[in-house]
């Protein structure tokens, strides 16, 4: 087996809240609470969960925009936390991001050519003619004519802007692109385009994706592996098709039951969760999911279930198994 491109081990990120400037802090938000996953070169890991489960914090940690409280992130075999100076710069070159809202992630005052060219200039010493040539290539890669480089973002629709954001993320030959809800803000007919484009780019450039979304169907479509997150922890990780065919964790089952049918007679398991996601400041004891779980047992409120491998590549954290 080849070494994974990105290996995350027991990653934690706690945010202190409350308390005064000098007083003791009152509480911790355990946004990410000990998660581990790997992403292989040229593959996609999908990360699914509801708002507040820690998906976005995870992406910030991977992007080295936040420092983890504990745990390690290894990229190409090296610990990201130990990178300094030029090495950290190089890490940032290789790990790029596409955000959810293409209206706020592209500067309205810059021309498309400058938006896509800026990361190239920041990371590589190229003549402006070379930068222009690279920008033209990138624009063609995402399906534009090269002469759109002189336009401003307001001249593009949402789907087109998201394609520009993808071109920018790829401009420095990134090895890993973090896609933070890249299609949630788009119309259905445009969503399919962006997902197909991402697939095509992955096949051509062998880039890896960390695809963060709450739409299970889209995640399962694009990713080889899917990880389900709940209140800062991974509750289930499996190969995507296997996860769809045989979800094991009650929360995953509930997510599938809640995902909308693709036609009126599609059967759905009848698992309706009661209540809402509890606060990450004071998560329930034991298994975080137990207050909403339809299969709750006495020990669920006492002991936290570990993430165990049930079959090859299928890990689940639940006392049922």
């Amino acid at each position, binding site marked *: 087996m080849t070494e994974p491109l990105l290996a995350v081990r027991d990653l934690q990120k706690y945010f202190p809240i409350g308390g005064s400037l000098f007083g003791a802090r009152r509480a911790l938000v355990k946004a990410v609470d000990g998660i581990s996953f790997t992403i292989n070169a040229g593959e996609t890991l999908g990360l699914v969960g*509801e*708002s507040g489960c820690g998906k976005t914090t995870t992406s910030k940690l991977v992007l080295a925009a936040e420092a983890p409280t504990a745990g390690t992130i290894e990229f190409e075999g090296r610990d990201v936390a130990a990178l300094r100076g030029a090495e950290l710069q190089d890490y940032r070159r290789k790990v790029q991001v596409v955000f959810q809202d293409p209206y706020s992630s592209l500067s309205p005052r810059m021309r498309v050519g400058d938006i896509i060219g800026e990361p190239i200039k920041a990371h590589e010493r190229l003549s402006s003619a070379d930068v222009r040539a690279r920008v033209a290539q990138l624009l063609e890669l995402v399906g534009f004519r090269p002469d759109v480089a002189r336009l401003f973002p307001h001249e593009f*629709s949402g*789907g087109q802007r998201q394609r520009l954001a993808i071109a920018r993320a790829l401009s420095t030959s990134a090895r890993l692109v973090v896609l933070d809800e890249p299609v949630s803000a788009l*119309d*259905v*007919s*445009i*969503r*399919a*385009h962006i*997902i*197909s484009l991402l*697939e095509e780019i992955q096949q051509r450039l062998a880039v890896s994706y960390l695809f963060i979304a*709450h*739409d*299970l*169907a*889209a995640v*399962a*479509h694009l990713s080889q592996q899917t990880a389900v997150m709940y209140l800062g922890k991974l509750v289930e990780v499996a190969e995507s*098709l296997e996860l*769809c*065919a045989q979800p094991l964790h009650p929360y995953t089952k*509930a*997510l*599938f*039951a*809640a*995902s*909308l*049918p*693709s*036609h*009126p*007679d*599609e059967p759905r398991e009848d698992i*309706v*969760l*009661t209540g*809402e*996601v509890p606060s990450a400041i004071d998560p329930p004891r034991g298994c975080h999911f137990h207050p909403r779980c339809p299969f709750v047992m006495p020990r669920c409120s006492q002991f936290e279930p570990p993430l165990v491998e049930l079959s090859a590549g299928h890990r689940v954290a639940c006392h049922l198994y």
Partner: protein
Amino acid sequence: MPPLLSVKDLRTYYFGFRGTRVVKAVDGATFTVEPGETFGLVGESGCGKTTTCHSIVRLLAPSGRIVSGRIELDGEDLVTKSQSEMRRIRGGRIATILQDPMASLDPLFSIYDQVAEPAYYHQSLRGSALRQRVKQLLTAVRIPSPELRMKDFPHQMSGGMRQRIVGAISQAGGPRIIIADEPTTNLDVTIQLQYLNLLKDLQRATGVALIFVTHNLGIVAKMCDRVAVMYAGRIVEMQSVRGLFYRPRHPYTRALLDSIPKLGVKEPLRGIPGQPPDLSDLPAGCSFHPRCQRAMDRCRVDEPSEQDLNGDGSVRCWSPIEEGAARD
């Protein structure tokens, strides 16, 4: 039995400065809603579905105007009503649920005040009867300990709870029809499921009709009895929900269905090429023709008329997909 709501050839346009630019947001929409049914209005952003709803309750932006057409509620034309007459209808016979529960609740009034208001004005409830009614409504939308929570303010509640409060407000005036405009867009999937189930339960209990506006075909599949697909201000196809999903007749409907990823299936997704058209500068002929794979010469010139589908609906296309045709 006559339909509860009947919209006939509705045209609502937005006029730019001195009429220099006319945006034909709704351009000839015709549909009916029967008592107690759930009618879906589907389409992408900018297709005119929200303007259709705003026209029905006569809450258009100042630049918008109903140019022609009739909107009949129990046979009464709403288009010719004055705004003071409309105030007695809105919240009473027609209620609305909007997309953003943060924006549709007033942060300065308690939950009790906001849920009680429609019952106060439209059902003339006062005192303890009003209090009982509010409690009953909050119980119906499954707010735990309603007696206590009715004193709360919106900021003390979670997003899902706020949207349930909006649901309670919509029920408070005893409406015949509720217009729900993308009511679950901002909710998480498990909360969305709770809310959709709740709406179904409320509908079963009160027999209210629902107009469900959404761009999400999954919600349509789950909730609706009949569906109209809108494109560029026109209804391009209208069918029963099963007819629409199993025998889509308009190429746009088929393309929409093909562009949603299905769980556990990795077949390639097909998006729709191009962009929805500019509503102030529509293409000649059928407005979908620049994006349509089946477009013929006629589509570029003549606007297709509405064809009846054996009483089960209608389609506006010169070359509708044949019934039972294999997927190409």
